């Protein structure tokens, strides 16, 4: 029998029983939808991480304090100080240094109130991070020295507090202290951890002296003159800090130096792992979908035993029967796959639109989804189809 006749027969038998076909395909539909949505979220997250690497430039190093091994467990690690930053600034190959301190505090403007990450930074922070104010001005070295009560708001913070109105010159409260907003950062649009959009910047001196009362740094960002010198500079900083912190030769570092690209690559890897994990959960539902198809095909073979006998009596070979049932299974799974692709696309769109996550459906996902659907149809259809094709025609005709 010609293949298009076989396909037509399969289609008719499926169309004959629409509800059952739809339910059979449901497992595939859910599985493919989930796979497409997960891939779209993963790909979107990857793109946003990559975007941030590009925005940061690849010649930034971050020095962070690291708890010395065996030290008392304390909430804050207090090893990096401003003098360390000043010393690093003197090293060869270092173009700029930005000492930073981190804290969290309540930020209020009239009735508006939110908890935000408060970053203490110097005048060098913005240029070093390739950030700029969208309105107002940045900090001056005097703000730092004079512990000026001025603040620069991230775009999201500004919007939450002021809406569409201008924040420049307004008085806000940070942990109960009055501050004047001097600048608002341009929106970076990226999401997640440590986005500048969600920060409030204050002069480092103010951060230490007025708000949090501590003189230890959260991080020192170092800008290296050129990317090629990055490794040398890293070593020099290491030596310098060990010397300054008077570490013995056998003591481990009490700090950690990482490049920004490394950090983001780590984040990218975490994102990738999450995507793979969620993807495999979604893939399990594809497996369940396949088992659903197999189940219904087995029922169908049993129900249609007599039909199989009649077809054999009029000249169907074993392979004609095999092909007929296999094509039926594959048609169901392709149908499920196509619907799933459409729903997955819809889900990715909805997540981006209403969830605020960037989603990108990679082109290979369409091919993958369709290919996997066909493969599942074949893998789970071949058993029932074999069973149909190996029936004894005399027995099959006897079936009621």
């Amino acid at each position, binding site marked *: 029998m010609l293949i298009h006749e076989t396909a037509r027969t399969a289609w008719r038998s499926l169309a*004959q029983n629409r509800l059952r076909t739809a339910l059979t395909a449901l497992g595939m539909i859910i599985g493919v939808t989930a796979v497409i949505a997960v891939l779209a979220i993963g790909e979107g997250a990857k793109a946003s991480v990559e975007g941030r690497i590009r925005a940061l430039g690849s010649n930034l190093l971050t020095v962070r304090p690291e708890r010395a091994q065996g030290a008392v467990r304390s909430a804050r690690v207090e090893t990096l100080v401003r003098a360390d930053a000043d010393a690093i600034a003197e090293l060869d190959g270092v173009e700029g240094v930005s000492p930073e301190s981190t804290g969290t505090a309540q930020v209020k403007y009239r009735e508006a109130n939110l908890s935000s990450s408060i970053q203490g930074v110097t005048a060098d922070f913005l240029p070093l991070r390739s950030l700029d104010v969208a309105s107002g001005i940045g900090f001056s070295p005097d703000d730092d020295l004079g512990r000026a009560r001025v603040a620069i708001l991230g775009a999201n913070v500004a919007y939450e507090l002021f809406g569409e109105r201008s924040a420049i010159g307004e008085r806000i409260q940070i942990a109960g202290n009055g501050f004047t907003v001097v600048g608002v950062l341009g929106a970076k649009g990226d999401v997640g951890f440590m986005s500048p959009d969600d920060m409030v910047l204050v002069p480092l001196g103010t951060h230490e002296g007025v708000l949090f009362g501590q003189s230890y740094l959260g991080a020192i960002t170092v800008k290296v003159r050129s990317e090629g010198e990055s490794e040398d500079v890293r070593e020099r900083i290491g030596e310098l800090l060990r010397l300054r912190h008077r570490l013995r030769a056998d003591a481990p570092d009490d700090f950690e130096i990482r490049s920004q690209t490394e950090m983001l690559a780590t984040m990218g890897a975490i994102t990738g792992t999450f995507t793979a994990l969620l993807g495999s959960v979604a893939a399990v539902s594809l497996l369940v979908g396949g088992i659903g198809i197999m189940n219904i095909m087995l029922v169908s073979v049993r129900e249609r035993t*007599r039909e199989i006998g009649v*077809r*054999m009596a009029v*000249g169907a070979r*074993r392979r004609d029967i095999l092909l007929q049932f296999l094509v039926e299974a594959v048609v169901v799974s392709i149908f499920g796959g196509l619907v799933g692709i459409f729903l997955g696309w819809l889900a990715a769109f909805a997540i981006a639109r209403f969830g605020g996550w960037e989603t990108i459906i990679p082109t290979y996902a369409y091919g993958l989804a369709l290919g996997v659907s066909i493969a599942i149809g074949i893998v789970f259809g071949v058993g029932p189809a074999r069973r149909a094709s190996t029936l004894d025609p*005399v027995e099959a005709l006897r079936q009621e």
Partner: protein
Amino acid sequence: MSLAHEPTTGATHTPVVIEELRKIYHADRAELAVRAVDGISFRIERGESVAIVGPSGCGKSTLLHVLGCLDRPTSGRYFLEGRDVAQLDEDDRARARNRHIGFVFQSFNLLPRMDAVENVELPLLYAGQRDTRARALRALERVGLADRAHHRPNELSGGQKQRVAIARALVTEPSIVLGDEPTGALDSRTGREVMELLGRLHAEGTTIVLVTHDLSVARSQDRVIRMRDGKIVGDGPAAAEIEAFVQENAGDFA
């Protein structure tokens, strides 16, 4: 396909020649072997119409399955159109059924989801032929059902269903049409109509072999083969064999 050929001189073969045909079933673990067909030989010439009769369990259904290439004999030879089909593999037997055999079943066995013409078309599709629709319509015309071509089986009467089944059996122009109690599921009037149709087809040259225990069906054939316990106990002109059959079974009915 390597086939032994029946010794023959003519250009055309005798449609059916069987020699010493046996079909023996072995029940599970039992020593007992059931000799359903036990050393049968006969030939059927082109254009003959034959009824095989006998009490239930006499092996006539098994014989029909072997004749129809649905089942394989345990031993013996079966030449269908001159080729020994007794030992053919599955695919070749499927091909033999498709080309040389037309089945008419007691319970019609039409596919319920297809209309009449599609049912008739089915053997042609498996034969991989073209122009299947036109040929199927012609076959329906031969059985007088051209106007029911697009009715599904559940929209047809019993007699009409059996006529569709006969059209399906005829559409490939097979060597023989095999009927398994073709009137068994019909009332006597429609049964007679179906037999009239088969008679007409026989008159037009179709070779027909029927298995039946309806003597009026057997009587309308040229020749009757009587079976008992897997063996042939009589083979001759219908009238004489039916007479013998009635004699033989007189005690059973008394």
